[in-house]
């Protein structure tokens, strides 16, 4: 590349931003719901934005909210958040080759900012470029944009919640948000099996001490999904 051309980082950033922009609209309702849900859970605006800055993860934040409200033990909150985030281990493994030639600080920042949306939109394009600086720009521009949108619209949601009366049960919006996440997953049959077993077991085992039922239910759900996948493969082979 010639000296007069823009830096590879900026060129990558521009390309990544253009690819991701249409997806970013989907973040807005989520962030608004997140802000309102944290306020309905009893957090102050500072606590709500503090959680948003520290965690930066819609699913993990919405999913742990009912546990925090119920006063669940810390280890259960950790386990649940981890289960909700395990998909990122797979995304992280898939993206890892694109970070060769990138320093550790930028890798940590990139890891912290990893979201479903950026992964879905950019994983493909990331593998195609040879220049490490271009790839970093291509990844970081949409990631930082997502971060900015998320923080801004959560803040708006946090303030919108204050003007809504309590009788509107806004906290139910958090449950709806989790259902909306679950619906596309459940189109795949083994995934539906995992959800039905996980949900059914959590309901039936809700009386277990220390809320252990939720952990047992998640483990049973994973096992059931994996089993269903293997059974499906076997029947296809016949």
């Amino acid at each position: 590349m010639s000296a007069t051309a823009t830096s590879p980082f900026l060129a990558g950033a521009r390309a990544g931003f253009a690819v991701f922009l249409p997806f970013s609209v989907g973040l807005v309702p989520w962030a608004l719901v997140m802000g309102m849900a944290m306020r309905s859970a009893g957090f102050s605006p500072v606590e709500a934005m503090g959680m948003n800055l520290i965690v930066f993860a819609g699913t993990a934040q919405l999913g742990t909210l009912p546990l925090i409200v119920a006063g669940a033990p810390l280890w259960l909150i950790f386990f649940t958040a981890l289960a909700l985030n395990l998909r990122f281990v797979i995304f992280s493994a898939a993206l890892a080759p694109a970070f060769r030639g990138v320093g550790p600080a930028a890798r940590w920042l990139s890891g912290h900012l990893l979201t479903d949306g950026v992964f879905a939109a950019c994983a493909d394009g990331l593998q195609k470029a040879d220049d490490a600086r271009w790839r970093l720009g291509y990844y970081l521009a949409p990631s930082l944009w997502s971060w900015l949108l998320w923080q801004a619209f959560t803040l708006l949601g946090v303030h919108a919640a204050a003007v809504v009366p309590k009788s509107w049960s806004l906290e139910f919006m958090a449950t709806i948000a989790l259902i909306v996440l679950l619906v596309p997953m459940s189109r795949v049959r083994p995934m539906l099996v995992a959800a039905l077993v996980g949900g059914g077991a959590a309901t039936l085992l809700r009386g277990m001490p220390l809320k252990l039922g939720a952990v047992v239910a998640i483990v049973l759900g994973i096992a059931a999904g994996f089993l269903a996948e293997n059974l499906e493969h076997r029947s296809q082979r016949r």
Partner: protein
Amino acid sequence: MNDADLWLIFIVIGLATTLPRASFIVLGNRVSLPGTVQRALRYAPAAALAAIVAPDLLVVGGQLAPLNAKLAAGLAAAASALRWRNPWLPFIVGMAVLHALRAWSG
């Protein structure tokens, strides 16, 4: 709940989020995940989401209640998410059903 506890909870959830996300990006190609483990892990989010949502929709005051306003609202939200692409619709439909049923049953 004490305020310091709440911030500790946020940090713990933050760790449970950033560590899985950063895992392979930071470690690079030195480590890799066995295929079987990768396949099994794909089911963790669905199982965990359902384990949180189902009791919330099915249990009212500690008792199983297969007919209640929250379950109907949840099913309506799921149906609209299945049928239409609009990201706002499940929230509008779900909240409308919840409030309509609560108003109707008094």
